[in-house]
């Protein structure tokens, strides 16, 4: 919660800086009104007009640009020129659970229904178990989207599968259809979000609504600002690599790899690929591990 608020205000400060530095945009009406009020006293700042001129305006006249969540229509289309993918390096995960915490903060979730789960998986009795971080696979052939009776969940051009919780009727057919159990439901009243007054957008999925479905959404609101989702940046071991398949690169924040080479060299695979869902989450096998497997203390593992 704190972290989210601070990141919001950080964003505001950052954008104010843009305006003050003259590279932010100001609304045309402000420029027009500026001429009417230019003899008024007050602190002045320099701003760049849409037609490329530097002007000096009253600070009080500048509409500070805050990030507005995109509209429903834009949210259904996806970010142009992107095909987002996630690569999970199973050799690096030690179940630190920082991704789960970061996700919980970013999406205002309660601990009982996380978007990310870290599962203990053992492929066969002779192999060593390993930790498998699992979120929505953003399938190219998504069962959830196929079954939705009202198109509340949809597939975008940038690979992301989103949910419009203003349209969802709460039939939970998508939850039954998803073979990866990626979806969670707001069974009761969701956790209230304080100090948030932006309009709802499927990209921010804030606020959550009672009686609707939610899931991991790759945080498109962050991606719009060219920022990595919080789960990627919060991982202490750099397990999660995120990127744009069209650029053929993925990064965990500190290391960047060529996607095709990484998957080729490390025998990347998709979980239960045989179901035909065509996920956009790839796993690198847990070989040459950074950590030996140690049982976690999460419930019911």
């Amino acid at each position, binding site marked *: 919660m704190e972290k989210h608020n601070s990141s919001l205000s950080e964003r505001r400060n950052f954008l104010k800086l843009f305006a003050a530095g003259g590279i932010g945009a100001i609304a045309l009406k402000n420029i027009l009104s500026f001429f009417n009020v230019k003899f008024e006293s007050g602190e002045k700042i320099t701003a760049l007009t849409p037609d490329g001129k530097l002007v000096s305006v009253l600070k009080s006249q500048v509409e500070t640009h805050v990030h507005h969540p995109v509209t429903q229509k834009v949210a259904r289309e996806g970010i142009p020129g992107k095909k987002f993918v996630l690569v999970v390096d199973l050799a690096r995960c030690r179940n630190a659970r920082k991704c789960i915490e970061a996700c919980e903060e970013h999406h205002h979730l309660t601990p*009982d*229904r*996380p978007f990310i*789960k*870290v*599962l*203990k*998986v053992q492929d066969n009795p002779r192999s060593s178990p390993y930790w498998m971080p*699992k979120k929505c696979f953003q399938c190219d052939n998504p*069962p959830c989207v*196929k*079954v*939705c*009776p*009202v*198109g*509340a969940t949809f597939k975008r051009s940038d690979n992301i599968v989103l949910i419009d919780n203003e*349209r*969802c*009727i*709460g*039939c*939970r*057919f998508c*939850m*039954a*259809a*998803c*073979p*990866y*159990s990626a*979806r*969670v*439901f*707001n*069974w*009761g*009243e969701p956790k209230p979000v304080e100090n948030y007054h932006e309009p709802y957008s499927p990209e921010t999925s804030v606020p959550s609504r*009672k*009686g*609707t*479905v939610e899931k991991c959404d790759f945080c498109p609101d962050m991606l719009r600002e060219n920022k990595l989702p919080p789960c990627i940046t919060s991982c202490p071991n750099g397990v999660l690599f995120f990127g744009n398949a069209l650029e053929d690169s993925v990064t965990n924040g500190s290391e960047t790899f060529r996607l095709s080479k990484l998957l080729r060299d490390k025998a990347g695979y998709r979980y*239960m690929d045989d*179901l035909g*869902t065509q996920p956009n989450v790839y796993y690198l096998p847990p070989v040459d591990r950074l950590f030996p497997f140690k049982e976690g203390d*999460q*419930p*019911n*593992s």
Partner: protein
Amino acid sequence: MDNIITKLENIGVPVKDDDRIENDLMKHIGAPGRGIKFWVFVLLIVILIGAFAYYRQLRYGLIVTAMRDYTSWGIYISNFVFFVAVSLVGSLVSSILRLSKATWAIPLNRISEIIAVAAIICASVTIIIDMGRPDRFFNIFIYGRIQSPIIWDVIIIGTYLVISLLLLFVSLLPDIAACRDKLRDIPKWQRRFYTYFAFNWKNKPVQFESLKKITAILGIMVIPVAFAIHTITSWLFATTWRPGWDSTNLGPYFVSGAFMVGTAIIIVAMYFIRKYLKLNEYITDRHFDNMSKLLVLLSLVYLYFNINEYLGPSFKMVGVEGEHITELFLGSYAPLYWFVQIVGLILPIIILVITPLRKPLPALIVSFLVIIGAWLKRFLIVIPSLQHPYLPIQDVDESYLHYNPTWEEWAITAATFAGALLIVTILIKIFPVLPIWEIKEERKAYKPEFK
């Protein structure tokens, strides 16, 4: 003469005057007695408790149920499947038996149509109760995607409801007219009601001719729709990526189970209607015998599909599918599973295959077993599958691992049953429960010299 009487008795039609038939079949209409008032009162209490539980669900959300992220469908959905199954009986009796010229079943036509209408209404109500956002019900029409099996279900349920209502209402017309003409001691509003809904029926031959034509067309139309309604309901499961539902057998498996439970429900309805409306001469032991035979036949078909459904997966025991089968056969669901298969399916076949046991009381008891088994069977189809997803259930609260329905869920489910019974009771109370004109007609067909 003897020959004709035997023939008449064989088809369950007594040798009586038209007037006597009318009198027998309409005498229960009129001011409600003490018994029925008490019965309706009990039903209303159950519905009220259910309404209160639903109010709590609306207010606090589906959190008042025991459903959670893995068991995301519970007894509402299994109850929905049950009611859809029951609704198929309308087509079985009044259409399949009619088309196969099983004239003995004519007195059962209306009962089955009434039950079908009540069941389909309650199925629709149940599915709305299951919605997380019932306030957005109209999104189904505003944003409906024809690709979604839910939309197929909405369309087919709507179609089936309309055809069932038409089938019930059209065949009621001459009897409503009889109520209008013959009933004397009824309140004014009721007479006006009959006058209005008789649609100016005058017992003209031309009217009967078109009535028979319409009934025949509807009777044929309803069969594919009835098959579709339950097949599509099975596709709600078969189109998902779930062990236990991922089966091509699911359509016929559901349809055959539906016909079986429908037959059992007709036997129960026959028993109580015969007892309380004193219609022993119209619903005879022969009806119980025939319906019991039908129940045995349909149970055998269902048994076949059950074996077909479980043998393959239990032979191969593939991964999670195998875990699911183990859970049903030997695990925590084993008592329920074997109760359903043995007491709800095999035992009824064994009992009713014995001729002396195809009498009203044993048939009633067996039918109750079948109905209980059928309801629990839907529970076993819906819930254990959801608890065996491909990925292991880990990292969640203890409560997510089990499913024990809450009192709200039971109260609402009980209320849907009470609602169905209330609809049936009201329709029986205001209309002749056996089709008078059809019984008269049948009688004339076999007794030309008395015309």
